[in-house]
């Protein structure tokens, strides 16, 4: 007799199946992250690099490293904007990746990650001193804990169009914020090309605002992590920015994304932007005639002679507490990544710079033309920044020379103090760009806007101090 599958049977079966899935699903997902017996597995989570060529090198490098150490390596690249939320979910779930790489100091994750003091000590032993702002971006002086390991950073110079600056009598581009105001205004007035400093709720506007504050000898915190924003120098900096907006910018800077300044420069519509060399590299590929006209200047100096650039892309890896079982191989991998940073520099087209300049160069074929006499990363760095290996045919040589001493004018978020969670929250919620923008838009007076921003910063600092992640150093 044929047994028909009735509607009731169907509903029962699917109902039971759904319940089974609901109850058994988590166990199945859990198994996906479980350690298989035998060969160990290292899981790496990181952002999709701004320079795609870097990832094309990195992924096979990681696989090869895994084969050499008899380790399965799984690498997942995700969008930068998803990185924090993904890692937060993994922290709550108590399982996930063994290494997570951020491009800003993840100091608020300190309670959930391993203390990497031993790794940092071993790295200094093998590769020499770390650039100071890399240490300040991975070490909490209050808890005496290395919550991360910083292996590299990105130089953030000023990118200017030489032909435009030549026409207004400043062929070597601006050297001070005052130069920027005076000459960029002339370029806008006489040549119709605007300046390109962002005033929006985005990464590069955050960077520009901090660079300006530090160059005016002020900032959000002092070296002992006390809020100092509400002072006369901040008010001057805010008034300067409002003036810069009036004379050199257009309303579009209030709506910018991190890519907008690159886009404006490449479109030939910006005289100056604050950015890494990525905008220039993109122009080399897409609009060579613009690229040939792009030159670089170091951090602009303020009225007191200080000049600082904000490290808004700094590579900090963490090892979560839940990955303690794999900490040994994760640390081994990070040390080996540092040892191979010549390739990281080369494959990122000089976008990434090493945090350990005294790392000895490995022998053998390194995938780039050998540099005579180069023994350490520093030698390679100096050579490549003196004579850009990626310069276009017929392009002027030595354009990257002003960036050779970038580590002396680059500094971390939180300068002159460490990059603590309060600084991270201030950065992540755009309090500084908003402070500048309110005055540029004439919604508030400079003094009021600074007071409001300082009060917001103070509230954030108090909260994190109560959590014990910022100390009470007097």
């Amino acid at each position, binding site marked *: 007799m044929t047994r028909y599958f009735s509607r009731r049977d169907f509903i029962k079966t699917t109902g039971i199946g759904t319940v089974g899935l609901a109850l058994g699903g988590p166990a199945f997902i859990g198994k996906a992250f479980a350690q298989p017996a035998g060969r160990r597995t290292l899981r790496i989570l990181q952002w999709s690099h701004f320079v795609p060529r870097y990832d094309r090198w990195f992924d096979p490098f990681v696989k090869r490293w895994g084969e050499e150490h008899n380790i399965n390596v799984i690498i997942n690249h995700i969008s930068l904007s998803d990185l924090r939320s993904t890692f937060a979910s993994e922290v709550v779930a108590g399982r996930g990746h063994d290494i997570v790489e951020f491009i800003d100091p993840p100091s608020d994750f300190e309670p959930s990650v391993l203390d990497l003091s031993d790794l940092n000590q071993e790295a200094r032993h093998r590769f020499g001193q770390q650039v100071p702002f890399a240490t300040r971006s991975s070490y909490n002086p209050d808890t005496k804990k290395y919550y991360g390991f910083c292996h590299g950073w990105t130089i953030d110079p000023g990118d200017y169009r030489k032909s435009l600056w030549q026409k207004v009598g400043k062929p070597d581009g601006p050297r001070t914020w005052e130069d920027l105001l005076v000459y960029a205004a002339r370029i806008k007035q006489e040549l119709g090309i605007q300046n390109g400093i962002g005033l929006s709720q985005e990464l590069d506007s955050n960077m520009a605002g901090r660079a300006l504050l530090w160059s005016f000898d002020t900032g959000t915190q002092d070296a002992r992590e006390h809020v100092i924003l509400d002072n006369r120098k901040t008010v001057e900096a805010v008034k300067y920015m409002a003036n810069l907006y009036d004379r050199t910018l257009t309303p579009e800077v209030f*709506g910018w994304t991190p890519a907008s300044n690159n886009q404006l420069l490449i479109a030939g519509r910006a005289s100056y932007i604050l950015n890494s060399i990525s905008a220039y590299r993109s122009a080399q590929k897409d609009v060579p005639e613009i690229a040939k006209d792009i030159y670089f200047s170091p951090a602009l100096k303020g009225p007191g002679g200080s000049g600082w650039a904000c490290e808004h892309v700094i590579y900090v890896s963490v090892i979560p507490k839940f990955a303690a079982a794999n900490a040994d191989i994760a640390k081994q991998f990070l040390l080996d990544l540092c040892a191979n940073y010549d390739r990281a520099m080369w494959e990122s087209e000089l976008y990434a710079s090493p945090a350990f300049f005294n790392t000895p160069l490995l022998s053998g074929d390194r995938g780039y033309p050998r540099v005579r006499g180069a023994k350490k990363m520093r030698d390679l760095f100096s050579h490549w920044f003196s004579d850009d290996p990626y310069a276009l045919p017929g392009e002027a040589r030595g354009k990257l020379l002003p960036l050779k001493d970038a580590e002396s004018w680059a500094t971390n978020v939180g300068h002159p103090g460490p990059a603590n969670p309060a600084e991270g929250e201030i950065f992540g919620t755009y309090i500084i760009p908003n402070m500048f923008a309110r005055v540029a838009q004439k919604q508030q007076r400079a003094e009021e806007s600074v007071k409001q921003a300082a009060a917001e910063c103070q509230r954030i600092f108090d909260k994190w101090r109560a959590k014990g992640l910022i100390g009470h150093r007097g």
Partner: protein
Amino acid sequence: MRSGRPFHRDSLTAFALLVPVVVYLAAFIGFPFVMSFIYSISNATIGDPHFSITGLNNFREMFHDAAFRTSLANTFIFTFVSIALVIVLAHILAELLIRDFPGKWIARFLLMLPWTTPIALGTIGFLWFMDSVYSPFDWLLRKLGLLGSPGDLFGPMSNLYWLARPGLAMASVILVHVWRLLPLATVILIAGLNAIPREIVEAAQIDGAGYFRRLFHITLPLLFPVIGVTVLFSVFFTFTDMTVVWILTRGGPPPHATQVLASLAFLKSIQGGDLAQGAAISLFFFPVLAGIAAIVLRLVKKAVVV
């Protein structure tokens, strides 16, 4: 005769059928809701799964925060302007689409397209349209001589900067949201219009009632329950949505000109790391939406009874 046993076969089947729904509601709505409440009275951060209860501090801080007050006002503007436009436009479209005309199915198909497009993709398309350098809208206005030269209707600047000026940015966000909600609202209203008995309309026509008299005395009163449900859906969609705002403006131009509560909660909790503050902001939705739902459903019920 049915058995008197408490666990009759049918009862068990009914129970089994209900279990998935109960599990789903408990896991994906109940549990997050309870967690949100707990987080909102704690000092939880995204970097630390441990937290302690701190009382109502987060709510007090929330009300003192200028960004929250701005976002609250923006949320109401965004929601009510969007919904008013959706209801008016949906009604016009529904009136047109219930009539017979050549190519009616193509028109209906085109109308539904925005609803079938993933919202993130559609919004990214608009992001390009409203780009500060390459906007095709601006290009068209320049070609028409309406933008880019002194004396032009939209000003001498080369671009309108859709997403950089506070008023225009809010208008852009509303425009994209209306584009997204319009198909659903239109389809619901078409169904409502088709359900109105033809004889009532015909009787009114015979009695000499004109279009507007029929609209305000017959169509709209009979459509009221349908419009109520449409409004309710739209309010929920709009009040809790951050996709359009986040992709187009990320809450800017500064300071928070288009920030809505949903995007502010994300900004504070994920980007800022303050999970507790984010949870407090999201919980603000609950009494507001519950209140709106209660009012609308009451009005709808009244209309149906009448």
